[in-house]
């Protein structure tokens, strides 16, 4: 049992090292004193006695060191000594240290930030019970256009009834709510979700307060109930528990608040703040339809059931339902399945990994650069190192110093990088609300550990690479080298040249990828939407409540609103539409053309729906190619007119005049009165057939108000909102955006990826340029006397300069070739992120080559110019 004693000793030696040191001195002093006393007792004089005592004692400093060497924590002491030595050494060249730390900080910071995002969004399991068994379920559309199509209510009901593979299955759909309190509070538009009562049970989540839905709540006849997100409860209701079991008004209907969800809960996404029972909210007929694909379905696989077994089970059921509705081509034949996590983050996966790979390249370049700087430093100190080596300094000792310097640089860079990463992640969470699970992104212990790991790897990498340059065989040569002004061997620069070539190669890869993404983004932004986007303001309105239940009242409201907005000063035109171009797909509907023969059984034709007011086309500058717009005087049943898009005509009325023909949509017959130009529902999607219906039929209760002005359309936002409030002060207005802002939002990820990658590429380019400049300057400085001799012997200065330039451009050129080859292979990986841009786009590759050569030439010019200016006499005298 000696460990307690050893532990006590260990602790004492760690925390009382200074005191123990002085105690040791006292102890040794006492010894000498006693010896002196003894000598005096033996008859020596005081002076003689002390002298003899000291002589017999030997070297006190050595004894002290030897005694100290037996203490525990000796390694810590020598480590600390190395650290102090390293800090002092770096402190002597603050410029070098600052540059190296900054380079490392950028490399490490970018990596840590991206790693945080990738880990939080892609790698962390969903915060639900046993998330590995949760899956998203889809219908597979018959025409194979949509392999992962939304599910119809009727199909879900059959799945739920007949399946053997899922322990739970829930259905949900997005829904916007106008939320108002019981009093006269301002209404507000809230993103919510209709879901079946067992959604939380399927996910394995309990409300933080109150209760979840029961089957009894989820019926059309039940009283309205609502679950609320933690943040909405805190923000709108001040976190007051009294709101439980109290009514709130959603779209004018009373709903009792039965529970508050935990703060971390974000499903189906972070924007969803309210959940209501779907069978209570939606008409039973709608929920029973088997051809209206409107919903998302989440299921929990039974233990032991695989995804393929689960989807096979559902596909059998789906096929059975299909066979019962052979006349309806919109009824699917098969089901599809995807892990829930993948369904939530699938779209962002590849861009995130591409960005992570880019940051890894940046970090590699940063390491190479620091290694390069360390080599330059070692070269400057080569005499000191050679002397120390000659005096017996061990190789390990010298390597340890190098590693310590590299470690100090990496650690300082890592600390600064972590701060940068904090800022970057904060910024990202604020700007990229469209990334799913963005609310889950946090810097935590694992990220800190990752940072520490990166620091160690970088330190070892840079330290070892740079130590390749100090080989024992060279040491003696260095001593001789510097004794007389012989030209420095070129061998030493070769390693740096290789590092530079690698840097340039990586830079080329980054530049190419960034160039392709930028070009793709430019294509995306300039893609012809089919309407004007200049000086157009949009805002969304949702019309709920008793006064909008009657189609005639609704139609009158639209007419009155538009009439008043059009009279506002500055408004050139105003219209109202379900969704403006670029705002998304929204929905489609099957149709038949009354004048055409009936379709063969099992075939369907459908087009995107858009309800629009008569002035919409003129407001958005969508050309009417034939016929006219809707008749503004018609209301409700009489407003049975349709306008179809050009691609609709091309596909379904080839070689025919559609004007005057009739469409039958959901049992309503409409006369086609006009043909409008094509528009795109998303900037990256080709125009699809579109059918416009008359807004004044009073069918639609939500959409976008669009206002066009000749200048400064944003200034009209407030006056228009005032008009809306005058008509109905309970009506919330949301998403007030100009067309440009709206399109910027829909192309946000493309611009984000392109911009970030460009930033990384520019950073790498700068690092490579600086590296090139540094190495070339070094070579020129080393060879000053050689150049002097050459010039003295009559070499033309142009030839000397050409040689120097060639020295600098050679690594750039080999790096360029290597980088282009690597890019050609790598860009295939980002093919799916490109829009109307070929991976091997010659313009982009050409631009990269030109940029790189330009930067390399710039980096080489100054050193070459210096070589040109060498005065032979001066050069020979300096040595």
């Amino acid at each position: 049992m000696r460990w307690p004693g050893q532990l006590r000793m260990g602790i004492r030696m760690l925390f009382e090292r200074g005191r123990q040191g002085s105690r040791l001195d006292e102890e040794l002093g006492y010894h000498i004193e006693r010896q002196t006393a003894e000598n005096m007792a033996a008859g020596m004089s005081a002076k003689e006695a002390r002298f003899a005592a000291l002589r017999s004692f030997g070297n006190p400093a050595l004894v002290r060191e030897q005694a100290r060497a037996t203490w525990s924590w000796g390694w810590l002491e020598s480590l600390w000594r190395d650290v102090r030595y390293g800090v002092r050494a770096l402190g002597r060249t603050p410029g070098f240290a600052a540059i190296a730390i900054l380079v490392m900080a950028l490399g490490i910071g970018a990596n840590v930030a991206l790693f945080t995002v990738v880990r939080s969004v892609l790698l962390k399991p969903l915060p639900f019970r046993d998330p590995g068994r949760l899956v998203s379920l889809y219908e597979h559309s018959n025409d194979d256009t949509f392999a992962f199509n939304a599910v119809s209510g009727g199909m879900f009901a059959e799945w739920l009834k007949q399946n053997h593979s899922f322990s739970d299955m829930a259905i949900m759909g997005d829904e916007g709510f106008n939320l108002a309190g019981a009093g006269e509070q301002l209404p507000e538009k809230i993103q919510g979700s209709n879901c079946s009562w067992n959604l939380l049970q399927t996910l394995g989540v309990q409300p933080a307060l109150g209760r979840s839905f029961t089957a009894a709540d989820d019926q059309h006849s039940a009283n309205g109930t609502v679950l609320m997100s933690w943040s909405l409860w805190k923000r709108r209701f001040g976190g007051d528990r009294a709101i439980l079991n109290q009514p709130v008004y959603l779209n004018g209907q009373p709903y009792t608040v039965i529970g508050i969800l935990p703060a971390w809960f974000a499903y189906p996404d972070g924007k969803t703040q309210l959940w209501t029972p779907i069978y209570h909210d939606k008409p039973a007929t709608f929920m029973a339809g088997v051809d209206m694909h409107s919903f998302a379905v989440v299921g929990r696989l039974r233990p032991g059931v695989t995804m393929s077994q689960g989807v096979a089970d559902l596909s059998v059921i789906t096929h059975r339902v299909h066979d019962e509705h052979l006349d309806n081509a919109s009824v699917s034949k098969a089901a599809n399945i995807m892990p829930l996590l993948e369904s939530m983050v699938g779209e962002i996966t590849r861009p995130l990994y591409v960005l992570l790979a880019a940051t890894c390249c940046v970090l590699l370049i940063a390491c190479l650069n620091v290694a390069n700087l360390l080599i330059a430093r070692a070269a400057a100190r080569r005499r000191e190192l050679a002397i120390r080596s000659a005096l017996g300094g061990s190789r390990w000792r010298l390597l340890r110093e190098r590693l310590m310097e590299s470690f100090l640089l990496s650690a300082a860079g890592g600390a600064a990088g972590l701060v940068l990463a904090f800022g970057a992640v904060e910024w990202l969470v604020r700007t990229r609300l469209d990334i799913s699970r963005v609310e889950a992104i946090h810097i935590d212990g694992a990220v800190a550990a990752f940072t520490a790991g990166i620091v160690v790897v970088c330190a070892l990498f840079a330290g070892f690479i740079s130590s390749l340059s100090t080989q024992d065989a060279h040491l003696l040569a260095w001593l001789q080298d510097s004794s007389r002004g012989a030209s420095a061997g070129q061998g030493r620069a070769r390693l740096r040249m290789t590092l530079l070539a690698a840097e340039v190669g990586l830079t080329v890869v980054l530049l190419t990828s960034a160039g392709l993404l930028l070009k793709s983004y430019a294509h995306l932004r300039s893609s012809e939407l089919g309407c004007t986007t200049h000086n157009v303001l949009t805002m969304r309105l949702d019309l709920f409540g008793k006064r909008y239940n009657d189609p005639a009242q609704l139609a009158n409201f639209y007419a009155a609103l538009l009439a008043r907005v059009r009279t506002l000063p500055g408004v050139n035109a105003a219209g109202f539409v379900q969704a403006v171009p670029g705002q998304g797909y929204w929905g489609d509907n099957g149709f038949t053309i009354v004048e055409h023969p009936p379709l063969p059984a099992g075939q369907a034709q459908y087009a995107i729906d858009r309800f629009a007011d008569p002035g919409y086309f003129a407001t958005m500058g969508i050309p009417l190619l034939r016929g006219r717009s809707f008749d503004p005087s018609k209301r409700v049943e009489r407003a049975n007119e349709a306008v179809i898009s050009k691609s609709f005509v091309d596909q379904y009325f080839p070689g025919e005049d559609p004007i005057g023909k009739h469409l039958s949509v959901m049992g309503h017959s409409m006369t086609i009165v006009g043909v409008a130009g094509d528009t795109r529902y998303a900037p990256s999607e080709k125009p699809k057939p579109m059918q416009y219906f008359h807004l004044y039929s009073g069918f639609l209760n939500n959409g976008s108000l669009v206002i066009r002005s000749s200048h400064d359309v944003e200034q009209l936002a407030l006056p228009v909102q005032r008009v809306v409030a005058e008509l109905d002060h309970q009506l919330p207005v949301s998403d007030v955006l100009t067309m440009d802002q709206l399109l910027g939002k829909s192309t946000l990820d493309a611009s984000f990826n392109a911009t970030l990658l460009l930033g990384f590429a520019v950073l790498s380019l700068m690092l490579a340029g600086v590296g090139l400049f540094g190495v070339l300057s070094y070579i020129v400085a080393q060879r000053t006397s050689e150049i002097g001799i050459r010039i003295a012997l009559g070499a033309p200065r142009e030839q000397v300069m050409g040689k120097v330039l060639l020295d600098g451009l050679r690594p750039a050129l080999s790096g360029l070739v290597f980088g282009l080859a690597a890019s050609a292979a790598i860009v295939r990986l980002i093919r799916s992120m490109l829009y109307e841009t070929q991976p091997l786009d010659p313009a982009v590759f050409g631009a990269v080559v030109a940029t790189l050569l330009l930067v390399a030439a710039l980096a080489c010019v100054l050193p070459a110019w210096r070589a040109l200016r060498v005065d032979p006499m001066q050069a020979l005298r300096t040595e």
Partner: protein
Amino acid sequence: MVGFRPVRAQFGGAKKLLRYLDGLQLAVDNLGMGKPNDLVQGTLDLLILKTVAPQPMHGWAIGKRIQQISGEVLQVQQGSLYPALHRLEQQGWITAEWAESETGRQAKFYSLTAPGRAQLEKETANWGRLSAAINLIVSEA
């Protein structure tokens, strides 16, 4: 670094004179440089443990006592004594306390710990076997 050597050898070559010590001949060749040989170090440890066993002692007295008991044959060098004391303290065989010495000044007194006492018994037994074995060989020759 020399472990300890006969008093008479003080002005002579440490290496040669160490041969006077029968039991340590094995160790001699390793004493010229580098770390102290295990055998020498082990022996010094044994001497220290044995010396502080009866009562706490400070460094100077330990050295003195080894010298006296050995009949002035063994003189422990300070360069070996203090590192050995500190090492034994780190290992937990002995413990140290500052107390007033016989001259009235503070000195560091070392005493045996309970594990140290067990270690002393073990080492003593080892030493007995080792020296007997070496004696057998040496007297045979």
